[in-house]
Each structure stands twice: as structure tokens, then as C-alpha cells.
């Protein structure tokens, strides 16, 4: 038995692996999106642009400064996060009092600015980023060949997701965060600097997007359009999972990555719309999302 419905097992497993990788990027992004929405009540349209920025930061640090992979993987998210903090302080902060739609439109504008700027400066073509020498090669698992870098991407992003989840659900800092989503006024009255916490949350989540971008750089080429193509899928993921639960966001993201991979194997023409079809089904069956607490 080497075939499943006429598809060789090796091909199927290869696509599943790709799906899992895409899923772990979706997870990093939708996790940040869900936390930002929970804390700031903002739908961060610029999340994709910050992901793109992470990729470009890594690429620029490598080509212009000659920094190694591990340094860039650390530095790129910090740079993106710092920019996020500036955006929150300068713009988003002033929009908390008005309708949520304005912050969505603002971040949409920022996304367009970043994408337009990078397209103007670097051109639309992708920039290759070499896989670090310590992670080249792969392991033969007997039934399939597992490239090292791909395994590392899955492990790294899932670890970061789980740590973030633990911090929010299990630590004192996380308790403050959760408390201020419920009642920011009361938390502030207990002497906690809520505005600072909001800035840090936004910076951290945007930094996660930057981390995802830096992680993605050796797998996909770095290009100005990489953010906008992923953000819409991530929005669909967030609609499917519901933004009430962080664990839910991670699980949904991985599941959808795998569904996408499976569609690519069995019916390639539909692979780009698979996630959206799932979204339509979920809206019909459970409108508030799979992991939502509201219904």
C-alpha cells in the first residue's frame, strides 16, 4: 500500500508537512491577532505587513550587515516590535475611544503604506534567503524525507505559541492582561499601568508576526506581497476559530494548514479557496466560530 486514492503516500506526507508549516505560520499570526483583538479591541490589518517586515528585516540584516541566521531571528522581531510600539503610541492609542472600524481602517492604511514603500524600494520580485548551514540537510524517517529546516520551523513556532499561551493563562502577568480585557478601569485602579501594558501587548504580538516573517524567509522568498496574501487567510482562520480563545486560535490555524495541504494533494485547483469554503461552512453551522464563548 503506497497509494491513497491514487496519490503516493510520500507525496501526501510531503503536502501534509507543507500544510503543517503553513499552519504554524497561521498559528503565530492568528495568535497575535487574537490577543491584540482581546486586549485592544483592534483588528490589526497591518499584521500581514509586519510579517513581511520581519522577513525583510532578516534579509536586510543578512545582506547589508552580514548578520548570521540566529542573530537575525532574534533581532528582526525586536525591530518589528519596536515599530509596532511606535504605531500604537502615535496612532492606535488615539482611536480607542471611537468606533472599532476606524482602527481597522488605520491599520489597513499602514499595511498599504508599508507594502507600497517596500514594493517601490525593493521591487515586487522575491529575495532569496539561504537556509542556515546548521539546519541544512534532513532526516530520513523511513517513510519520508524530513528536511531539517522545515522540522525546525514547526518546532520553533509551536514552542513560541505554547509559551505565549502559558504566559497568558498561567502567570501573574497573564492574569493582569486577562483582567484588563474584562475591566481596564478597575485594573488601572489597582495601580497597574494599563496603557503601557497595551503598548507592550501590541509590540509583542506584532513582534510575533515579525518572528514568523523571519522564520519564513528561508522557506519562501521575501517579497513585499507576502504579507497581504497571508493576512486574508489568517482573517478567515480567526473567523473560523472565533477570537475568544487563544488555544482555539492555534488549533484552528494548524487544522486549516493541514486541510489546505490535503486539498493541494487531492484537488489542487481548489487549494487556494479551501480555507474560505471551510469558513462559509462554519458560518452556516456555528456562526460565532468554533471556539467562541459567546454562543
Amino acid at each position, binding site marked *: 500500500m503506497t497509494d491513497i486514492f491514487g496519490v503516493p503516500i510520500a507525496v501526501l506526507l510531503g503536502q501534509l508537512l507543507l500544510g503543517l508549516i503553513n499552519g504554524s505560520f497561521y498559528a503565530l499570526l492568528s495568535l497575535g491577532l487574537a490577543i491584540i483583538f482581546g486586549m485592544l479591541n483592534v*483588528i490589526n490589518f497591518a499584521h500581514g505587513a509586519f510579517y513581511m517586515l520581519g522577513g525583510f528585516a532578516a534579509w536586510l540584516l543578512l545582506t547589508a550587515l552580514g548578520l548570521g541566521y540566529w542573530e537575525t531571528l532574534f533581532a528582526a522581531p525586536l525591530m518589528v516590535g519596536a515599530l509596532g510600539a511606535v504605531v500604537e503610541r502615535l496612532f492606535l492609542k488615539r482611536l480607542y475611544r471611537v468606533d472599532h*472600524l476606524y482602527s481597522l481602517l488605520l491599520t*489597513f492604511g499602514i*499595511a498599504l503604506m508599508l507594502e507600497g514603500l517596500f514594493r517601490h524600494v525593493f521591487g515586487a520580485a522575491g529575495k532569496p534567503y539561504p537556509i542556515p548551514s546548521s539546519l541544512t540537510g534532513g532526516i530520513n524517517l523511513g517513510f519520508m524525507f524530513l528536511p531539517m529546516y522545515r522540522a525546525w520551523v514547526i518546532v520553533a513556532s509551536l514552542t513560541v505559541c505554547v509559551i505565549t499561551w502559558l504566559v497568558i493563562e498561567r502567570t501573574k502577568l497573564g492574569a493582569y492582561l486577562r483582567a484588563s480585557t474584562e475591566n481596564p478601569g478597575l485594573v488601572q485602579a489597582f495601580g497597574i499601568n494599563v496603557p503601557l501594558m497595551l503598548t507592550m501587548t501590541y509590540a509583542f504580538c506584532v513582534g510575533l508576526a515579525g518572528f514568523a516573517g523571519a522564520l519564513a524567509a528561508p522557506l519562501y522568498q521575501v517579497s513585499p506581497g507576502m504579507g497581504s496574501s497571508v493576512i486574508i487567510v489568517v482573517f478567515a482562520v480567526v473567523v473560523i476559530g472565533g477570537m475568544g480563545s487563544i488555544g482555539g486560535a492555534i488549533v484552528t490555524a494548524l487544522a486549516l494548514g493541514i486541510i489546505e495541504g490535503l486539498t493541494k494533494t487531492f484537488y489542487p485547483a481548489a487549494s487556494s479557496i479551501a480555507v*474560505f469554503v471551510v469558513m462559509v461552512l462554519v458560518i452556516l453551522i456555528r456562526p460565532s466560530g468554533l471556539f467562541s464563548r459567546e454562543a
Partner: protein
Amino acid sequence: MNSTTMVSSLQAPRRLRTTRGLLLALVVLLMICAPLAIYPLFLIKILCFALFAAAFNLVLGYAGLLSFGHAAFFGGAAYVTAHAAKIWQLPFELAVLAGTAFAALLGLAFGTLAIRRHGIYFAMITLALAQMIYFMAVQMPFTGGEDGIQAVPRGYLLGIIDLRDITAMYYTVLGGTILGLVIIWRTVNSPFGHILSAIRENETRVTSLGLKPERYKLIAFTLSAALSGFAGALKAIAFQLASLVDVTWHMSGEVILMTLLGGMGTLIGPIVGASVVVGLEHFLSTSGLPITFIIGLFFVVCVMMFRRGVFGELKALLERSKP
């Protein structure tokens, strides 16, 4: 609100109506004479986008629904119209009607799904659904992929007037745009329109009055989609082209910007916004500056500095300056 503004707003209507009527007549007269001074195809583009933005404003400005997927109606209708005119060889009117009907059906489907969720989710769902249409347009054979559908025949208006003549085409599009705007104006000023505004202000209250907000939202959304499709259909015929550009999410964003810039919830605002954005793009396309960046910058400036838009701010200023 104090008593003086109450009185003035009660007395204003008759005088305001005559001024408004005169202004409107002046604008229509200007539009009739415009092709003498300005390149007609450029004017057609402004008209199509003005209608598109006004139709979009029906859901954003009046019903308070932020749709991020209106490009699907605009661009989708353009494809259907172009296909109907070129391959099925339908006459002009039927081809436009086919596009509009397609957009209306698509709007009904999108609306039925998206209205199940509120606020920000509504925006994300419409965006995702429109992206699905984009991917379909990329893959389906009849859309011609990257090339789009080119050399669409313009045909004859009512079987007599040759639309290959650019001036005839311009007046046809002008007529279509005015028709669309009148429909929007009638809708907004009808009891239906008032209920829409009430839903935007307080949906729970409307429900408590025994009305079904979902039904009103769905009708408004479908109407908006149909009119957006009408605009897209006219554009496809006038430019003899239906392409991927019209179905991308950038297009959905652009129509939001037009409405926001001009002033949402006003009738004139979107038309002003569309003229500004189309004019700006026309100017920028030869300057070598990155258009996407500047469109984004406009968004940021609009949201931060004047959320009521050019026309909305002007209106507020006039009301404040009144004695």
C-alpha cells in the same frame, strides 16, 4: 441641541432645497458640457467610481456595515458583462443587466453569510469571501487569467446609437450613473432608509420596535452590491476590458477610501471622494511615485485627522457658522 438650531433647522428646508436644486442643476449642466474640456474616458472612469462609491456608501454610511469585499461585485459584474457582450454577443443593455444581476445574486449570497456576524467580523468575512472570488477569477478559464477579457465590443444603445463614439458612450454612462444615484437617493430618503440609519445607531432598539434588522441589512447589502455591479458593468463596456485589478482587495480598499475621504453617510461625499482618488491616481500614474503608499497615507491621514471626510467636515463647518 439648543432651541436656535432647532428653529433654524426647521426653517431651513425650503431655502436649502432651492439652493440644493440649483446646485444640482449646475453640476448636471457641468457634467453635460464636461467632455468639451476634459478627456471623456477619464470622465467615464470618475463616473463609474462615483457610482461604485455611492453604492458602497449605502451599506457603510447608512447601514453602518463595513464591507471589505465590494470589489467582488464591481469586478465580478465586469467579467460577466464582458463575457456576455463578447462571447454571447448580447446587446449592450442585456450585457449590463447580466452583470448587474450577477452582482445582485452574489450580494445576496455574501450578505446572507456575513450578516450572521457583527462589526469587525462582518468586515473580515466579506474580505475573505471576496478573496475567494478573486482566486476563482484567477483560475477559471473564461476570465482569461492575467490578461482578462479584452476588446469587449461596446455595441449599440437601444440598437441605434453607436457606442464606439466616445461622446455617445460618455452620455450613456452619465445617464446610467444618474439613474443609479437617483435610486440611492430615493432609498436613503424612504422609510426604509430611515430604518437603516436607525439600525446603524441602535440595532437592539430597532429589534425592540418589532422590526427585523437582518432583513433590512440584507436588502440594503444586495441593493448596494447590484449598484456596484452596475458601475462595474458600465466600466467594462466603456473601457472594453474586464481584468483582475477590479476584483483585488486593493479595489475594495480603494472604494472604502473614496467614501471615507468624501464623507460617509452623505450623498455627495462618495462622489467627491471618487473624483479626488481617481484624479489623484491619474496624476500619480505618470509621476513615478508609489501609488499604494500614497493611498495608504491618505487612509491614515483621513482616519486620524478628519473622520467625517471632506464633505462631512464642510457640512459641519457650515452648520457651525450658521447664526
